[in-house]
């Protein structure tokens, strides 16, 4: 394949990744609920980050091992962080309901 086409494909991957990151941040701002906010803010941003790192790796092929390490780290840790956050929010609401049960009912 020609070098020129690889450059254009890399720019396209950068554009796709940044568009997904922007849409994820827009969903984080516009969603009405906490759980839908955490869903929009984590999944779309993870996909955008991985696509953008692929774009950087297509521009500079010598850096691809370190970029693969960063992408694997984001793919492993970002769902763990969001799951921990949702679990903490759920337990906090449950503890709050149990504490004020006689007032609510």
């Amino acid at each position: 394949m020609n070098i020129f086409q690889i450059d254009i494909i890399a720019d396209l991957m950068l554009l796709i990744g940044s568009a997904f990151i922007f849409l994820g941040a827009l969903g984080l701002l516009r969603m009405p609920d906490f759980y839908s906010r955490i869903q929009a803010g984590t999944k779309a941003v993870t996909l955008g980050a991985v696509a953008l790192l692929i774009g950087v790796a297509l521009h500079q092929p010598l850096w691809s091992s370190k970029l693969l390490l960063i992408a694997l780290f984001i793919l492993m840790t970002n769902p763990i962080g969001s799951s921990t956050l949702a679990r903490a929010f759920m337990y906090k609401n449950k503890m709050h309901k149990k504490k004020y049960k006689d007032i609510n009912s």
Partner: protein
Amino acid sequence: MQIVQIDAISTMQFISLLLVGGAVLLTLLRFLIGPTGADRVVATDVAGVIATVSVALAALFFGSALYLDLALLFGVLSFVGVIALARTMLGGRR
């Protein structure tokens, strides 16, 4: 006088930089107007991922591979901070 040498960037790279900057602004807005503390923690998580990716973009545009170690460091510290904030939200050891 020019301190940092930057190559000429194409139009698509310029648009992608604009979109990443807009994402940072929207995340900061959610951080400012978030009704509960949990929304602010989610905004911190998203801002950490965007910081990691934008440091990798800085490595591309400055043409230096030293920034990639910095991006990995940003990712690790953001993950540890989000886990610590989620533990703090429950109030103590759990």
